[in-house]
């Protein structure tokens, strides 16, 4: 075979493989790390194993406050370069005045479609839906007997297009999401030993996630080489806001957490450690902590599992 056709074929194969790879946490020259408390706008091949958190949950109704340890696994898989699915499971250990409860929370399934990407302005937008599958977890740890479907909009924006007078703000980036949690049932009626019925209402909720990050890799590679070397040149300080508010059926106050922390992005894995600070007493008491080990499947297996299926 002549040299030209061989080179042409190599080019076609390389570019075909490369096209899908662009989707992984990138918008132009911006690398967006995987966030821990909030969902990011990217369709990617990724595995979080594990995410471990510890925090104190507020008392609710007749239930006293509990100290909760959660360990979860989340897998995201691209079907096409812009459409992917996600599955997640969480094991809970809850300790309180009434003893210790252990078990799995409900399974979660999700799908996401990335419909917008502007490389020059480091911007991205996606729509997705999350399905918390009712009755798939242990009631003893509070897994709901009803499902909740949450359609959401996800956005990401890097600030690399700021003017040179603001160059030290260019490493900043923001990702965010807004979703509406829609329970499959408006309420659950229970009857106690004395035959008295009571109804717990399940309101619709507004869920807001926000992550503000300052990328030291971006500073080093695109703005100013300030002399950082490993491991510091891979650190990304971050603060996440994970908030929720019921807005009907006996609506309650905003609840959620603010999570300041650090991410470290390596060749195949990302490590993350964040404090979990409740925004109010309705959320819980005391500061918790969350740790995540995150694998970039598309980097670990670029020619097999890490590719889009189609």
């Amino acid at each position, binding site marked *: 075979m002549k040299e030209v056709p061989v080179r042409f074929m190599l080019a076609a194969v390389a570019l075909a493989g490369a096209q899908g*790879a662009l989707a992984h946490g*990138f918008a132009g020259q911006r690398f967006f790390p995987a966030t821990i408390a909030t969902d990011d706008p990217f369709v990617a091949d990724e595995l979080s194993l594990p995410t471990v958190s510890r925090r104190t949950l507020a008392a609710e109704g007749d239930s006293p406050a509990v100290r909760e340890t959660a360990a979860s696994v989340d897998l995201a898989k691209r079907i096409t370069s812009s459409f992917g699915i996600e599955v997640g499971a969480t094991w809970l250990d809850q300790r309180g005045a009434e003893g210790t409860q252990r078990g799995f929370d409900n399974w979660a399934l999700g799908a996401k479609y990335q419909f917008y990407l502007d490389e020059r302005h480091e911007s991205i937008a996606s729509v997705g839906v999350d399905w918390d599958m009712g009755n798939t977890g242990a009631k003893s740890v509070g897994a709901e007997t009803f499902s909740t479907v949450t359609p959401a909009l996800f956005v990401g924006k890097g600030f690399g297009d700021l003017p040179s007078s603001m*160059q030290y703000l260019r490493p900043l980036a923001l990702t965010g999401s807004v979703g509406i949690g829609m329970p499959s049932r408006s309420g659950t009626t229970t009857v106690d030993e004395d035959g008295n019925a009571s109804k717990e209402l399940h309101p619709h909720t507004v869920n807001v996630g926000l992550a503000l990050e300052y990328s030291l890799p971006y500073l080093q590679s*695109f*703005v*100013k*080489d300030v002399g950082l070397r490993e491991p510091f040149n891979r650190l990304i300080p971050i603060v996440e806001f994970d908030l929720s508010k019921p807005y009907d059926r006996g609506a309650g106050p905003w609840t959620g957490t603010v999570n300041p922390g650090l991410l470290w992005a390596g060749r195949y894995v990302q490590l993350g450690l964040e404090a979990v600070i409740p925004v109010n007493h309705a959320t819980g008491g005391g500061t918790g902590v969350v740790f995540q080990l995150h694998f970039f499947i598309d980097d*670990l297996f*670029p020619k097999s599992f890490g590719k889009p299926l189609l």
Partner: protein
Amino acid sequence: MRRVARSLFILAALAAAPSAFAHAFLDHADPRVGSTVDHAPRRATLWFTQQLEPAFSKLKVLDANGNEVDAKDGGVDAHDRTVMHATLPALAPGKYRVEWRVLSTDTHVTSGGFTFEVRR
């Protein structure tokens, strides 16, 4: 216990892998990213964290008006595929922008750019 030790070993090996990213990222450059140099450099050299595919990796240097000023020979080093060079003429004082778009050997594309300034 043995399983935990093995898992920790694998994790440490993954985390300490010699290249920073499987995607090719700029590690450092000469002239340095965002720097001001007293004398015009004769070439721009970029060191990446991954080996690059020469046929699909491009490097160019632009002046403040966006005109390409290098000798249009920007490409991957023949002996070290993590390095790219572009030869420069005698640059006049002013700001310049280095731009690249590279394909790493594991088929990931990355792109980027940075500026440097020649004082005199």
